[in-house]
């Protein structure tokens, strides 16, 4: 490192969105102190508006292609796609939080959300094992706090503790794996590690890979690191559940895709076989357990495990099409799942329940809300003309191209199982009657925006997917 530049101002451009996030977090915390209690709900607007600006900057600002800070981070096009995905999720979650009574006036909550996002954005661009670990820890620790934020609520507190214990454990395993990789290769930059790993003994490299996989697997909720999902999803405040289910999962996939592509190519066929198996088991278990759930957040938890399984199809395909398909699917999944959780917030505000049965008669109480949930469920289930269909189709295409026909067949069978429980919810919403069905559901303005945006995105991505997919596809080109 001796002769290299220690600091170059242009590097700041690479992490401009992260810097802005940090500033935004400080602004939000400052405004929180200044605002009187009855106006603190506007903190959500501050957060969301700030995030929109960061999102635009991250999309439009010129970014140097080469690595910055001596190879710690590289904001390549695909990393920026992921960053935009998290920021979009953050905007929607911040708006959604404004309608979630226990949290909506809480300044530190919004701050914590921003810190977690900051960690995710760094995860997407990290190109160094130490950087990766620090970014993941920043994300996780903020997320532990968010999950257990409702101290009065035992479910939330329990969920927070569970999430932390499970997270700490997997994080420790991963850290051990990282140290093993460092010991094997003597480097921490992805490229150095990859180069040295070709010479390293295969078995040790594989052990390192598996241990790192444990850490990634926790983030994306893949089997067998999925055990935390149902309890944490159920116990966490619903906007936080939405946040963890989309942004945190997407961040896990961002680091997974990059690490597999750049650190472990020398492991070759073995890790592909392993990922095929994990993908098949993840989607199958997720879907089967989801069938029995009575609580909608638990059902969505298992559904999110299954969705991770679908995305792993793209990871296992290990091709440009597979990677682009996984990233594209994550965009679709982000808007779709947020639509689902936004309806859960509003319905449980009113009924005080998160049981699927409490959605009975919803279509008579609010057309808008019913269709919002319906679109989300059909999209998750992969029914056209909604976005989930085209997303799954491209994932399957990636796998067929790589010759993973058996995995695609398992994927197809899983789609059928998943449609069963999604349709069962649709049935409750549309067909079942309830005694309160004449009572309309009030939809506050922030939720109107969230639902309006996500519903439009679900339909538009479903029928006119080309521009967004092309954007992801071009971005994936930098990796090949």
């Amino acid at each position, binding site marked *: 490192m001796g002769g290299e530049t220690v600091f170059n101002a242009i590097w700041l451009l690479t992490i401009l969105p992260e810097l802005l996030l940090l500033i935004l977090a400080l602004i939000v915390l400052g405004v929180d102190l200044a605002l009187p209690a009855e106006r603190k709900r506007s903190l959500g607007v501050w957060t969301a508006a700030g995030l929109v600006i960061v999102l635009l900057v991250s999309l439009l600002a010129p970014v140097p292609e080469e690595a910055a800070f001596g190879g710690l981070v590289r904001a390549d096009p695909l990393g920026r796609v992921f960053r935009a995905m998290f920021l979009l999720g953050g905007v929607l979650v911040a708006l959604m939080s404004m309608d979630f009574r226990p949290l909506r006036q809480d300044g530190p909550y919004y701050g914590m959300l921003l810190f977690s996002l900051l960690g995710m954005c760094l995860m997407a661009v990290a190109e160094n094992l130490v950087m990766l670990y620090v970014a993941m820890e920043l994300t996780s620790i903020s997320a532990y706090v968010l999950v257990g934020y409702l101290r009065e609520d035992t479910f939330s507190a329990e969920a927070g503790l569970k999430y932390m214990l499970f997270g700490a454990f997997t994080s420790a395993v991963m850290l051990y794996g990282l140290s093993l990789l460092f010991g094997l290769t003597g480097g921490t930059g992805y490229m150095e590690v990859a180069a040295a790993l070709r010479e390293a003994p295969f078995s040790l490299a594989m052990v390192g890979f598996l241990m790192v996989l444990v850490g990634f697997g926790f983030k994306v909720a893949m089997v067998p690191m999925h055990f935390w999902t149902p309890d944490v999803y159920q116990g966490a405040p619903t906007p936080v559940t939405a946040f963890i289910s989309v942004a945190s999962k997407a961040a896990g996939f961002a680091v997974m895709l990059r690490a597999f592509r750049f650190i472990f190519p020398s492991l070759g066929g073995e890790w592909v076989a392993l990922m095929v198996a994990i993908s098949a088991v993840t989607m199958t278990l997720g879907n089967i357990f989801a069938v029995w759930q009575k609580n909608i957040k638990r059902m969505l938890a298992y559904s999110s495990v299954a969705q991770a399984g679908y995305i792993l199809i793209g990871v296992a395909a290990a091709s440009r099409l597979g990677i682009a398909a996984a990233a594209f699917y994550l965009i679709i999944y982000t808007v779709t799942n947020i639509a689902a959780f936004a309806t859960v917030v509003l319905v449980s505000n009113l009924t005080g329940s998160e049981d699927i049965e409490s959605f009975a008669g919803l*279509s008579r109480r609010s*057309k808008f809300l019913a269709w919002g949930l319906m679109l989300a469920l*059909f999209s998750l289930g992969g*029914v*056209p*003309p909604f976005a989930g*269909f*085209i997303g799954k*189709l*491209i994932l*399957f*295409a990636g796998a*067929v*191209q790589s010759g993973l*026909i058996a995995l*695609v*067949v398992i994927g*197809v*069978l899983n*789609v*059928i199982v998943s*449609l*069963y429980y999604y*349709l*069962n919810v*649709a*049935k409750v919403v*549309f*067909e079942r009657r309830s005694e309160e069905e004449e009572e309309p559901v009030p939809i506050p303005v922030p939720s109107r925006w969230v639902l309006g945006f996500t519903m439009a995105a679900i339909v538009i991505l479903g029928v*006119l*997917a*080309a521009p967004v*997919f*092309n954007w992801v*596809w071009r971005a994936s080109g930098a990796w090949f």
Partner: protein
Amino acid sequence: MEFPVLSVIIFAPAVAAVLILLLPKDRQTEPKVLAAAGSFISFVLAIWIFLAYDRGAGGYQFVEKVPWFPAIGSSYHVGVNGMGVMLVLLNGILLFCAVLISWRIDERPREFFALLLLMGVGVFGAFALLDLLLLVLFYELVLFPIYLLIVNWGWKPLREYGAMKLTLYLLLGSLVAVVGILAIFFTSGLGTFDMVELEGVALPVSFQRTWFLPIFLGFAVLASIWPFYSWSPDGYAAAPTAVSMLHAGVLKNVGAFTAFRVAVLLLPEGARFWMPYVVFLMVMNVVYATFVALVHTDFKYIIGFASVAHLGVVLMGFASLNELGWSGAVTMMFAHGIIAAMTFAVVGMVYDRTHIREIKQLGGMVQRLPWAAVGFIVAGLASMGMPGFLGFIAEVQVFLGLWRAADLAPWYPVIAIISAVGIVGTAAYTLRALQYVFLGKLNPKYADLPGTSTLDKVALVLMSAVLILGGVFPFLVTPIVQSGVQSVLALLGGA
């Protein structure tokens, strides 16, 4: 630029559906009027393309092509040959009739009519699209409207079960076929989903033999091929009348036609290899479904099984792999579509007034519902292949086609004979239903049953007219079908 007639046919109902959903909540009549208007536009334009199609030139006409997803070689490419014209016309007629028949729906009419129209959009698209990816998208577009329609407006005791079974079966079939389509896409190496381009590619024979069965059977699930048919009688029994009409009348044809277009036309070697065996499944359709219809006493199930049997005949026509059989199959699709829709409409008229479908508890309905009775007789005669009706022309062509397919496998003529005997069964169960439901003594409690409405009569007359006109003047139908079949055969090098 030419007038994009096919696109207007496809999307006029979609526009109507969106307008309906934007109506205020309390409107009862406006949704129906809008639905009728939207489907009427498609209906009139469908008649127009039927008249304007250049039979001499043949091939795909009214073609439009716009890039849709260039990165993966998919474009919005529509066009119809003679076969497609007939099927678009069929859907135009039936969608309009289904809206008329549903005029009595007062339970949440906005959602009902919007979803019904969306179903029609999917069907139009699946008949007219020449791009495999969008074809699949429109094919599966019918899934969510149909589920919601059955589960909300269907027959209470069965609707949750029937709707779920139907939806999952259809999705499973089509997704299996989708995997095959992706395999075709990557194997062809053209980087396009365009069927017209793919039709010109000779895929490796071993590939064709591997993928023919999953693709053909995957789509044929929607054509209720034995043993994947059981969703059909249950689904129809559970569905509201208009949905049964459309599902039996056009959606099954979507399955058969797509199986033909994708599996047989793109994988002809696979078809030659497998069809002589797959044809036995179709024989089971005819024989098994006919026997069940003979003993069933639920009016709607009888019609449902009749439709399963007729689809067996359609698929057999395609399985003959020759010109006569294919012409017969397309004519049969058209005839069966009208017959099934009419009979389901009649069942609906009887059930809505009596709330009974058990044929032995009905009787004498001709006194109260003479229009329905006549409609049932017309459809029944066509269904049993009586000369003078369209069904006759269709069945004769299919059986002759099978007879001539003896070069494919020696058992084809035997199959023709077995299936022709099945027609006798059709006559038996149709007459049995007619006798129990419409003839005999009228139960006194039905003495004041309200008669059929004007709109019901319009729909029945329209559908009867098509069956009779087509039967008496075969030159209205046969040449256009044949021009379609010949253009397809030319593609396959006169196979």
